[in-house]
């Protein structure tokens, strides 16, 4: 792996770190933070700093250092997390993201002098009021500690903590000495290690007692077994490690040798070394109440986890060590997981699922191969069935397996949409800074997963829609209050799966679309004829027309009239649809309907004359064979069909695609009722339905060129190519053509349908 590749990984990790930090700060802002939230932000910034140093990005490193120092103060509780501070941190994060972009060569290095000064001021301003600002720290840490952490704030965290630890150890020397008197008598240089295996150390055939045996073989003797945390039988979870041990090791044994024993269980077994180190706490399953990171050993005896400390105190024999403030435990063990200590050092984060990074191109190859496998499987099934061997069990099994492989391969590419949504807060911050409109963001369904390609290409249209919503939709605070709404606008983002597609909604509670103005503007720009009669939906759709913008003046946010038509194009390119619902005075909702993946789709295979076509199942509502009396002619060229009392236009597919020898009379063929974006429902007339199956989509654009009314192509089981119908485009075009042939009939059709 060369330096460039490593650098690429660094930047990928930067993105993740920034996302994590953003989420953490968002939680802080919403007031839903816990102990780990600030720490997660800190970790994010810290890891960027580490990489920046390694790759020599001086500006980035310097900036992250300032940022990180303030964060560590917040984490330690020496600086209180107030709303202005969260806002400062959010701004700092935006600048950090610019810094990362600059390091990547994607922009100018931002001027951070003022911001750095602000960040520094936030630390310094609080340093003087340290003890007063943080009662917890004041209560448990004697003065020297405060000084230490004060001066240490310039330093890296580790150093800071070490110095604190030293001073605490000093402060505790009196009582600690008394307690350790006994062991100190016989072996002055012996040292103590406290061992707490957690659930993971007991899993997968791993056995903590075997490791303890090794400790004993090294010359260690068990001073005490802390069984105080073992609950009654009915509350016992055999998977949790409740026991903790204190071993006395002879001075001749190296600390590293003991650590080596527990090395391969890593995080799952905590060690605390030193006479004044407290026993790491029991790690209970997440569902149970975790003991609060109480600074003092006088924890309330109620929750089982909090029992550890007092029980240990009661059970303490002369040799045992009084439980020091948990703080020391956390700092004494330099292992990655330091347990739940005081001072806001949170419990170790839940171990993330193991993951590997692979190149996207490798994944795409796999997906491609799986696609071919699906086709090959279909071909084989078809060949066998033509030889009369269709219904063998093996084929069914193979079919199931192929589908499983395909789904798994797709799942590898699936990512939660949260990665797109997480950019939104920054966009909103920038918008509210430049427009003066305050917008509250509500997000739901951010864990909804969809294909990475879709996610990547979703960012741009989503950004446009959000800018549009804030710029055009949401009113200024004064206007809102005058309209009887709260001064703060609300933007709702949601994502959900619905029948194999993903539905993304962007809803604002603004003024809604001003249809009169939209129409006037469209007429002025010559987009529509002045005397045209348009329905509400048609007027709404005008905002997607190229060159359309109602903004009074062009701002840098929106108003150039390139946004919305690009949005629609982007969404269409993804095989999706966009619809608008708007209510004057109460807001506008844009709904994007997108496929979960671009590689595979469910389709209905139909025959039309000499052609085989695929109708995407996403569009299909139902299929039926109409009775002759359900079909009515309308004008000279149109046909309408009565579907349970509602008339919908019939689109003869053979006319649209130019197939020969197809059924012409609706009553002799099959009608597939489809839902379209622009034209409502329509019925496609086909000869017969052959099959319903998953088809692997091959892009027509890359292999041939884009064709109106055709979404792509697929290879059928018999090796022939079948076109996949772009239902929206095809129906809209066919109806428009029919309409031109039969203009006079249009109002009548609507009246009848209604």
């Amino acid at each position, binding site marked *: 792996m060369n330096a460039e590749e490593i650098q690429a990984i660094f930047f990928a990790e930067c993105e993740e770190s920034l996302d994590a930090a953003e989420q953490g700060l968002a939680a802080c802002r919403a007031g839903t933070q816990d102990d780990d939230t600030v720490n997660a932000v800190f970790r994010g910034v810290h890891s960027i700093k580490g990489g920046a140093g390694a790759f020599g990005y001086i500006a980035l490193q310097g900036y992250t250092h300032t940022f990180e120092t303030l964060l560590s103060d917040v984490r330690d509780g020496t600086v209180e997390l107030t709303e202005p501070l969260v806002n400062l941190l959010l701004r700092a994060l935006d600048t950090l993201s610019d810094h990362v972009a600059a390091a990547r060569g994607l922009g100018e290095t931002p001027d951070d002098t003022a911001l750095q000064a602000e960040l520094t001021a936030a630390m310094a301003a609080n340093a003087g009021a340290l003890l007063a600002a943080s009662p917890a720290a004041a209560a448990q840490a004697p003065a020297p500690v405060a000084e230490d952490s004060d001066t240490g704030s310039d330093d890296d965290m580790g150093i800071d903590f070490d110095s604190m630890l030293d001073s605490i150890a000093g402060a505790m020397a009196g009582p600690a000495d008394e307690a350790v008197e006994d062991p100190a008598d016989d072996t002055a240089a012996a040292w103590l290690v406290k061992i707490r*295996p957690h659930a993971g150390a*007991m*899993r997968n055939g791993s*056995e*903590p*007692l075997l490791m*303890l*045996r090794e400790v*004993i073989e090294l010359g260690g003797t*068990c*001073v*005490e*077994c802390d*069984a105080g945390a*073992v*609950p*009654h*039988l*009915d509350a*016992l979870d*055999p*998977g949790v*490690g*409740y*026991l903790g*041990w204190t071993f006395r090791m002879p001075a001749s044994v190296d600390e590293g040798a003991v650590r080596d024993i527990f090395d391969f269980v890593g995080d799952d077994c905590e060690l605390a070394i030193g006479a004044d180190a407290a026993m790491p706490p029991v790690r209970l399953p997440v569902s149970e109440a975790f003991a609060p990171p109480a600074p003092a050993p006088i924890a309330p005896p109620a929750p089982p986890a909090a029992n550890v400390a007092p029980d240990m105190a009661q059970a303490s024999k002369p040799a045992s060590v009084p439980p020091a403030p948990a703080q020391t435990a956390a700092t004494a063990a330099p292992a990655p997981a330091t347990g739940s200590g005081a001072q806001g050092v949170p419990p170790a984060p839940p171990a993330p699922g193991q993951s590997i990074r692979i190149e996207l191109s490798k994944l795409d190859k796999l997906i491609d191969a799986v696609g071919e496998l699906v086709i090959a499987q279909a071909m084989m099934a078809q060949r066998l069935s033509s030889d009369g061997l269709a219904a063998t069990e093996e084929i069914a099994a193979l079919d199931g397996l192929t589908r499983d492989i395909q789904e798994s391969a797709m799942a590898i590419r699936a990512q939660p949409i949260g990665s797109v949504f997480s950019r939104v807060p920054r966009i909103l911050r920038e918008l509210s800074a430049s427009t003066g409109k305050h917008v509250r963001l509500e997000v739901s369904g951010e864990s909804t997963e969809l294909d990475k390609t879709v996610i990547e290409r979703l960012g741009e249209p989503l950004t446009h829609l959000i800018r549009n919503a804030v710029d055009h939709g949401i009113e200024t605070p004064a206007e809102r209050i005058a309209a009887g709404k709260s001064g703060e606008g609300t933007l709702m983002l949601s994502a959900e799966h619905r029948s194999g597609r993903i539905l993304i909604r962007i809803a604002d509670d603004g003024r809604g679309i001003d249809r009169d103005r939209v129409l006037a503007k469209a007429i002025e720009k010559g987009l529509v004829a002045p005397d045209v009669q348009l329905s509400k939906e048609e007027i709404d759709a005008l905002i997607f027309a190229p060159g359309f913008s109602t903004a009074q003046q062009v701002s840098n946010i929106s108003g150039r009239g390139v946004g919305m038509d690009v949005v629609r194009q982007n969404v269409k390119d993804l095989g999706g649809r966009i619809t608008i619902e708007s209510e004057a005075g109460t807001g506008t909702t844009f709904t994007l309907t997108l496929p979960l993946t671009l590689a595979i789709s469910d389709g209905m295979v139909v025959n039309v004359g000499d052609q085989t076509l695929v109708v995407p199942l996403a569009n299909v509502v139902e299929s039926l064979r109409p009775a002759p009396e359900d079909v009515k002619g309308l004008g000279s060229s149109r046909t309408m069909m009565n579907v349970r009392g509602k008339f919908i236009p019939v689109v003869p597919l053979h006319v649209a695609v130019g197939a020969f020898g197809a059924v012409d009379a609706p009553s002799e063929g099959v009608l597939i009722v489809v839902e379209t974006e622009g034209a409502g429902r329509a019925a496609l007339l086909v000869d017969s339905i052959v099959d319903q199956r998953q088809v692997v989509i091959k892009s027509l654009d890359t292999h041939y060129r884009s064709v109106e009314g055709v979404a792509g192509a697929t290879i059928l089981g018999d090796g022939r190519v079948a076109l996949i119908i772009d239902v929206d485009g095809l129906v809209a075009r066919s109806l428009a053509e029919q309409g031109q042939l039969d203009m006079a009939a249009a109002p009548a059709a609507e009246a009848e349908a209604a």
Partner: protein
Amino acid sequence: MSTITLPSRCDRAAAEALLPELVAALGNGPLVIDGTACTHIGQAMFQVLASARRSGEGAVISASPALRDAARQIGLDSDLFDGADA
């Protein structure tokens, strides 16, 4: 008085299997846990035994030399075997 016998190999799986039995037995009064056949024991079972000692009326554990030895090595012997009804 009910008696529950420990298997020779008291690993985590054994502890998990034994736990419901112990819970049921302790609800019915005094309990003796016969550990005289035990040759191997892990942390999970030790935890179950320690818990059984402090649940209900407190189980009485009779131990094999191997069990007693293992408990002594890890400082649990007094917790498990001291007194009859601790």
